[in-house]
Structures are given as C-alpha cells and as structure tokens.
C-alpha cells in the first residue's frame, strides 16, 4: 500500500511521517489566534449610512427651522386690514374732540389697548381684527356723541 499523501510505501493509508506532519500542521493552525476584525470592517461599511442619516437629520432640522421662522415672521407682520382700520380710526378720533371728559373713555382706551395687543399677536385673525375695529368704533361713537351734546 502507498501513502495517500506522499506516495511512499506504507502499511497504512497515511504513513507515520505524514500522520506526524498532519498533527504538527493542525497544531500550527490552532496556534493562530484570530484578532478582532469586525470593528475595522464595520467602519468601512457603515460610514456612508451614518453620513446619510446625519445628512437627512440635518436637512430635516433645516426644513423645520425654516418653516418655523417663516410661520413666525408671517404671524408677526400685521395685515393691511389691521393697519388700515387702526389708522382710519386714529385719524377720525384725532379730528373729533369731545367737549367734556366722559368716565367711559378710559374704559374704552383700555379695551383698545387690549385689542391692539391681541391683534399684534394674531394680525391675520379676523376675530381679533374685528375686536380692534369694534373697540375703536365704540370710542369714536362715544366721542362723537359727547361732542354733539
């Protein structure tokens, strides 16, 4: 019989020399420790994903911030209707001089101040604009009424 590994004459399938070598190579194989490899591989295969995630998050934050700023600035700009109404009534009130002070006047001034603050906070809210117009109108009517007395 010949050895299946080296072809030398052997009483067994694998000769003693080859069997000893196999043991030696198996021991060599087992002596090689595998170091940690995954972290180095992961760094190479994941960065793109992390970058994209970061980019997507940054874009989302940017879009939300822009929308927030736009909405805020839109809300803070008084509408032409509010400005026009206030200007109209202020001019009318300035022309009208009441002959005598009325106890209702300070109350109406406070109502106008409150309505102006509310209209400034929500200049596009038709209810607040209506309240402002009503407050000015009440004062103007009162002043006209007292002026005619």
């Amino acid at each position, binding site marked *: 019989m010949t050895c299946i*590994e*080296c*072809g030398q004459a052997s009483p067994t399938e694998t000769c003693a*020399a*080859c069997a*000893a*070598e*196999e*043991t*030696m*190579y*198996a*021991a*060599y*194989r*087992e*002596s*090689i*420790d*595998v*170091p940690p*490899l*995954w972290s*180095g*591989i*992961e760094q*190479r*295969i*994941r960065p*793109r*994903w992390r970058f*994209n*995630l970061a980019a997507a998050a940054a874009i989302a934050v940017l879009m939300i911030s822009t929308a927030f700023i736009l909405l805020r600035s839109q809300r803070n700009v008084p509408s032409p209707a509010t400005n026009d109404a206030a200007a109209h009534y202020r001019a009318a009130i300035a022309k009208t001089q009441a002959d005598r002070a009325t106890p209702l006047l300070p109350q109406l001034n406070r109502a106008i101040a409150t309505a102006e603050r509310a209209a400034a906070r929500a200049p596009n809210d038709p209810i607040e604009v209506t309240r402002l117009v009503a407050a000015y109108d009440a004062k103007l009517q009162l002043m006209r009424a007292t002026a005619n007395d």
Partner: protein
Amino acid sequence: MTDPWRVERFRLLFENEQAVVYRFLHAMTGSAETAKELAQETFYRAFKAFGAFEERSTASTWLCGIARNVALNHFRSGRQFGRVFDVDAAPEPASGHGPETLLLSRELRDAIRISLLALDEEKRIAFTLKVLEQKSYEEIAAITGSAIAKLKTDVHRARLQLRAALAKYREDS
C-alpha cells in the same frame, strides 16, 4: 444608504468564516498585522459583492477566492516588503489554547511560518487550503481556478519542500 439588515446578514457570515479567512491570509503573508489588514479588505470587498453572492459555492469558498485575490494584489502592489520584515521579525507569541499548541514550540511555529513563506505563491495557496484548512481539491479548484491535477502536484511538492525545511525539528521531536 447601507441596508442595516444586509449588514446583519453579512455579520453572521463574517462570524462563521472569519477564522478561515484570517488563517489563510496569515499563512500567505506570515504576518499577523498584514493578515488582519488583508482580512478586513477581503470582508469589505465581500460586503460590496454580497448582493451578487448566490450561494452557488459555499461562503467559505467564495471568501477564500476573494482573500486569494486580495493577497495576490498585495504581493503585486510592491507592499511585500512586509514579507521580508516578517521573516526577520521577532517570533510571534504562541497564543493558541489547545493541548497540541502547548506541544508546538515557539521555534517550530516560527519555522513553519517562515517555511510557508519560502514556498511560491501557488504552492502556498494550495498547501494552506489543503493541509491547514482541510479543503477538498474540488473546493481549492473552485477558489483558484486551477486544475485538480496541478493542485495535487503543488501540494505534494510543497509538502516535500516543507519536510526538508523542517527536518531538523522532526528529528528533534
């Protein structure tokens, strides 16, 4: 964007095959540091081609094929100065844990490592896969693209060359 599920599937494959790939590259380069670097490159390339892996061959065969190409590219890229350095370097500490490892002296371990490096690349690949990694000739043929008859000749010649190189240690034992 990298699919996290794909990464997880690949990680499972990596866990199963990392030892084979690393040991193969360790035998090819004789250096723990170079083997680590090339193993990471192998798995990185494998990850990029993971979608195309259709399991027509085993994962081990597929990965060893990539590792072989990575090693050959490394040798041809002019970075094989490490090979000379490795041979002259201080011996690596014996780090295995099995009873056989305890019997393998550090001197013999380094003698095997250096003798493997003395083989030409084709013989080293065939010998490492056949004798160290216990692959069949059919698997080695799938990895290397060589004919089985040639692989048998390469392994036989490598065995004789190593036997001569390690004769001193065999006599000692």
